[in-house]
């Protein structure tokens, strides 16, 4: 009887067998990498907006307080976007002819709201409340990043559940004193862990409750 297979077939057969064993692991690894990639989480991806609003200019440059525009942040679940009239408080005086502000003026004139693209997006089943975070010592830049350095706004955190839980399980490293909540320049001091612990008890944060499903999902 003649040989059915060439000598090289043995190596191929071995490779096939090994591939069968390894494929599921590779699949797992690749999907995990994809799920965490910015393409999926949206992290650091800049979205085109109707008006190229620059936080760098308004916050970093002019030093506007976050709450000037995001008025609901201390009282409501949603921080809120400014009404057109808020923009026009200044822009009826300065840059009144600027081309890039034409949509704002049109909105104000015709009463048609601006339509911004949402940047930091949580799924519908996640109930995030800005006001409680702000009240408990979580600063704006902790989640939104250094907006004062962003000419165009982008999502700076992955906003995955794991990312949320990091802080919910151990908030101490991210807590800051009340006066620094809206500061864009705050950086954790060297003894942040101790300070964070103090803030935990000062703010009455019960970490045992924070990883409950019902804290965010209902």
């Amino acid at each position, binding site marked *: *009887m003649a040989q*059915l*297979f060439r000598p090289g*077939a*043995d190596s191929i*057969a071995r490779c096939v067998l090994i591939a069968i064993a390894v494929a599921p692991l590779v699949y*797992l690894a690749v999907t*995990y990498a994809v*799920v*965490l990639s910015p393409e999926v*989480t949206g992290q650091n991806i800049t979205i085109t907006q109707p008006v190229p609003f620059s936080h760098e200019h308004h916050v970093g440059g002019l030093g506007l307080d976050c709450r000037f525009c995001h008025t609901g942040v201390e009282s409501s679940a949603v921080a809120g976007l400014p009404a057109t009239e808020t923009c026009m408080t200044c822009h009826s005086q300065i840059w009144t002819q600027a081309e890039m502000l034409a949509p704002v003026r049109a909105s104000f004139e015709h009463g048609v709201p601006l339509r911004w693209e949402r940047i930091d997006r949580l799924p519908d089943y996640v109930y995030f409340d800005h006001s409680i975070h702000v009240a408990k010592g979580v600063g704006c830049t902790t989640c939104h990043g250094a907006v004062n350095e962003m000419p165009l706004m982008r999502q700076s955190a*992955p906003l*995955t*559940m*794991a*990312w949320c*839980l990091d802080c919910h399980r151990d908030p101490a490293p991210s807590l800051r004193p009340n006066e620094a909540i809206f500061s864009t320049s705050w950086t954790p001091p060297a003894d942040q862990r101790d300070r964070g612990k103090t803030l935990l008890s000062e703010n009455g944060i019960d970490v045992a409750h924070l990883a409950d499903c019902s804290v965010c999902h209902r």
Partner: protein
Amino acid sequence: MSLTLPARNASGSSRAHSLLPATMTDQAITGAIADPLLRRGAGRGWWIAFAFALLGAFAMVATMALVFMRGIGVLGNNKNVVWGVPIANYVWWIGIGNAGTLISALLLLTRQDWRASINRFAETMTLFAVAIAGLFPILHLGRPQYFYWLFPYPNSMTLWPQWRSALVWDFWAILSYLLFSIVFWYAGMLPDLATFRDRAESRRAQLVYGALALGWRGSASQWRAHRMFYTTMAALAVPLVCSVHSIVGLDFAASLMPGWQETIFPPYFVVGAMFSGFAMVVILAAALRQGFRYEALLTPRHFEAMAIIILASSLIMTLSYATEWFNGWYSGKSAERGEVAFSFTGTYALLFYAQLLCNCLLPQILWWPTLRRRLIPLVLVSFGVLVGMWLERILIIWNTLSRGYLASARQTFHMTGADWSLLLSPLGLFAFLFLISVRVLPSISMHEVKELRHEEAQS
């Protein structure tokens, strides 16, 4: 349990040529099993059966598509009877699936010589049945697209499966059992694939079987390693099989619902699995025997041995039922007692009596040796057992969930068209797969039959 064959075959001295006719030389055995596949085309009977099976397979695919697209609301499950046909089917098919490996392994370990002729297709049956069974837990999910959450993998939610759930045990049990069975089946088939490689006439068949045989040469050292592996696998298979169906039993027993929370469930599910599994093997053996003219390989003695096991299982099942009723009464709890009373007098009482008829009474005709050596009565009993065992599974679900603890929550299940389709069409899919497999793979283990013949000759 000990399963003894008739006395004349029990001792080695009198077994000579008793199972296989003397005309079955090595050459004849090879020819009888390989040639219908390698050298002859499929007969008309096969094609007709295949056409029907194909229809069933399509129906199954269509039903699955319906369930996935419209939602499982197309089934009859309601707010209290939340489980229904898919779960009953799952238990039934996994029961069928348990039999193959159990038969193969248990009979190997207990040195039942008649095993050689039936173990291969019983294992094949196992693979397809378990694969089909594995579909149902996914099919019955409200959101089947997320079934993989039962698997522990690193994820961005930092969540893990909830390991206390019987469904997670199920997931691992089925997965382990399916993969284990594939390995067991494939390893057992390696030498036969080599035979096919060497006997095939077309180049393509030679290459395919050659690749699948991995270069098996049948050298003594290979045989030695093979035997060591195979018997070890058999020794592992028995506890695995028992655990798999015990876990299926735990799906119910680990709950606190009346009629479910019973310690007898795991063993009784294992026996039930063997019961329905042997019934299915009998039917498949009869079909193969007719279809491939395997009269010399599948003799009345084979059927008789299986009949005796069916009979014994039936007795154990009857005892289990009686134990269940007794315990229901003995518990002194009104919910448990009510549950037993409900099965005899409630909404589904007629089905319950049909179940008892099929599982307890019908197999008793096998006490008559003449009947158990005849194909037709045995096949009829087997069909009855298959129906009875499905009824048992659906009634476990329906009776408990329709009644439960609160009078206000009593509710009857109504079968929908999709339920019927989901009940019947998997049989078509199974037949489809099985028919293909018997055309392309050796459905009787040639090397083991030859070895049996050799052993018979030696003694």
